[in-house]
C-alpha cells in the first residue's frame, strides 16, 4: 500500500483530526464528558466495590474464610439460599402465568392489572414488611389464629419468603410481557390447529421463544431476593441463627464491630452480584433481540 493510500485510509477512520464533523462535539468537550462519566462512576460505584474486598481481607484471607464458617454465618447462608430457592420459582411461575394471561387473552382492566403488578416497585420495602406484619402478625386476627395452629408467618421463614416475593414481584412478569406481546399469538394458534395440547404448545412453542427473557428476569429476581434487607428486617424479627438472612447478619456483625465478619459476608454477596452482572451482560450481548430491549434494568 502506498503512503498516500495509507494516509487516506487513516483520515477516513479517525475523527481525531483538527477537522470536526458538525454533528460531533469538539475533542476537549468529549474528553471532559468522558472524564466526568468515568471518574464519577469510579468514585460512586467503583470505590464502594473495592472497599468491600479491602475490608474483608483486612486481617488476611484465613480470617475472612474463618468468619464465614462461624455458626451464625453458616446459618445465614443456608437461610438465604432456602428463601431464594422458594421465592424465585414462585415469582417465575407467577411471571409466566401473568404474562400468559395478559398477552394471550383480551379482557377489561388489563392496564389496571399491569399497574397492580408494578406496584411493589413504588412501595418502600419497609412499608411492604409493615403490611405483612399487619396482615399476618400475632396482633391480627388471622395471625393469632395461624400462631395458635402452629404456623407462624411473621418472625418465621414464611414471612421472609412473602416479603421477598413482594419486593421482587414484577421482575419476571415485566420482562416477559413486552417480549410476548411482540411475538403475538399466531405461532401458538398454528400449533393448536395442528392438534398440539395446551401444555405442549407452551413447552415447545412459547417457552423456546421466551427462554432468554425468562432467564434474564429470573436473574434480576435472584439478585434482589438474596440481597433484600428492608422488608426482611421488618418481618424476620432478626432472630440469630433462625431468621437472620445474609444481609441481616451483615448488619448484626457490623453493629457488633465484627468488621471482618461483616465485610466477608458482604464480599460473598458482592461476588454473587458481580457474577449476576456478568451473566446479564452476556445475555444482553448475545440475545439482545430476544429480551425486552428498551427496558434494560
Amino acid at each position, binding site marked *: 500500500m502506498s503512503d498516500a493510500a495509507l494516509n487516506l485510509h487513516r483520515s477516513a477512520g479517525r475523527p481525531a483530526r483538527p477537522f470536526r464533523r458538525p454533528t460531533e462535539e469538539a475533542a476537549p468537550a468529549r474528553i471532559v464528558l468522558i472524564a466526568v462519566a468515568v471518574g464519577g462512576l469510579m468514585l460512586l460505584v467503583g470505590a464502594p466495590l473495592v472497599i468491600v474486598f479491602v475490608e474483608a481481607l483486612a486481617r488476611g484471607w484465613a480470617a475472612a474464610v474463618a468468619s464465614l464458617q462461624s455458626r451464625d454465618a453458616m446459618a445465614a447462608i443456608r437461610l438465604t439460599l432456602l428463601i431464594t430457592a422458594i421465592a424465585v420459582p414462585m415469582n417465575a411461575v407467577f411471571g409466566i402465568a401473568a404474562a400468559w394471561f395478559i398477552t394471550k387473552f*383480551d379482557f*377489561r382492566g388489563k392496564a389496571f392489572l399491569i399497574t397492580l403488578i408494578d406496584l411493589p416497585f413504588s412501595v418502600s420495602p419497609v412499608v411492604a414488611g409493615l403490611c405483612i406484619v399487619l396482615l399476618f402478625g400475632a396482633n391480627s386476627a388471622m395471625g393469632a389464629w395461624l400462631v395458635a395452629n402452629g404456623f407462624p408467618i411473621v418472625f418465621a421463614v414464611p414471612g421472609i419468603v412473602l416479603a421477598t416475593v413482594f419486593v421482587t414481584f414484577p421482575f419476571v412478569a415485566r420482562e416477559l410481557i413486552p417480549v410476548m406481546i411482540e411475538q403475538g399469538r399466531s405461532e401458538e394458534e398454528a400449533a393448536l390447529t395442528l392438534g398440539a395440547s395446551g401444555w405442549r404448545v407452551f413447552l415447545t412453542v412459547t417457552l423456546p421463544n421466551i427462554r432468554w427473557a425468562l432467564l434474564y428476569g429470573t436473574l434480576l429476581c435472584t439478585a434482589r431476593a438474596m440481597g433484600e434487607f428492608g422488608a426482611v428486617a421488618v418481618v424476620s424479627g432478626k432472630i440469630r441463627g433462625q431468621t437472620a438472612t445474609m444481609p441481616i447478619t451483615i448488619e448484626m456483625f457490623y453493629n457488633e464491630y465484627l468488621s471482618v465478619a461483616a465485610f466477608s459476608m458482604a464480599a460473598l454477596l458482592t461476588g454473587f452480584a458481580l457474577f449476576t452482572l456478568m451473566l446479564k451482560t452476556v445475555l444482553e450481548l448475545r440475545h439482545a433481540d430476544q429480551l425486552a430491549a428498551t427496558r434494560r434494568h
Partner: protein
Amino acid sequence: MATRAPLIQRTAIPGLGLSAGITLFMLSLVVILPLGALLAKGASFGAANVWEVVNRPRVWAALWLSFRLSFLAAAFNLVFGVILAWVLVRYRFPGKRIIDAAVDLPFALPTAVAGIALTALYAPNGVLGSLTNQIGWQIAYTQWGIWMALVFVGLPFVTRTVQPVIEEIEAEIEEASATLGASRLHTMRHVILPMLMPAALTGFALALARAVGEYGSVIFIAGNIPLRTEIAPLLIVIQLEEYNYDAAAAIGIAMLVISFAMLLAINLIQIWSRRRIGHV
C-alpha cells in the same frame, strides 16, 4: 381497547383459567391483601389519629428529610445519568463495556452491602472521609451521607431509560440542525436534550421512588439522629420495634400517599413535556 368488549373475550388459546387463577391468587396474597391490611389499619385508627401521628415534629422532620434528600439525589442522577448515557452511546474509549456493565451494579448489589461499604469509605477515618474531613466536610453521619447513599441506589435509572432514546436519534436531525447554522452547543440544548427529556424524567421518577423508600443503604451511613438524620422508613421500624402498630401504619400510609402524589405529579409533567415537544 376493551370498553365495548365483554369482560373476557374467548380465544382458541387454552390456559385461561389456570393463568388467570395463578395471577390473581398471587396478586391477592402478595400485594392486595397486605396493602389492604395497611389501609384497614389506618381506617380503624381513624384519620384524625393518623394525622396526629404524622403531625409530630419528629415524624414531620423525617418525612421532609426523606423526600427532600431523595429529590436532591434524583436531581443529581438526572444530570449525571444523561451525561453517562450520552458518553456510553456516542463515544468510544477503552473499558467502555466494563463501564456500561458497572452502571447496573447498584441494582445488583444488596443495599446492606452498599450501606456498610459507603460508611467505610466516608466515615471520618475512612479512605475518602478522612480527605473530606480535612477541608471540614463531613459526609458520613450527616445529611450528606444520606444523599450519597441515595445517589448510589438511584444511579442506574436515568442512564438506562435515556440510553435507548439516544441510540434511536436519527443522524439527519442533528445534520439538519448543523446545516441551519446551529452550533453544537445550540443543537445539544435545543434539539437533543428536549428529545431526551421525557425518558430522563421517567428515570428521575423511578430514582425518586426508589430513594424515598430506601432503607438498607441509608441507615448505616445516616447516624440516625432524631430530627436531623432520621429517615421516614427508619421511623416505621422504630415504631414496630416498640409494638406501636397504629403509629407505624400511620407513617406508612403517609409515605404511600406522598409517593403516589409525587409519581402522579411527575406523570403530569411528562405528559406536558411530551405535548410541548410534540413527539412521543
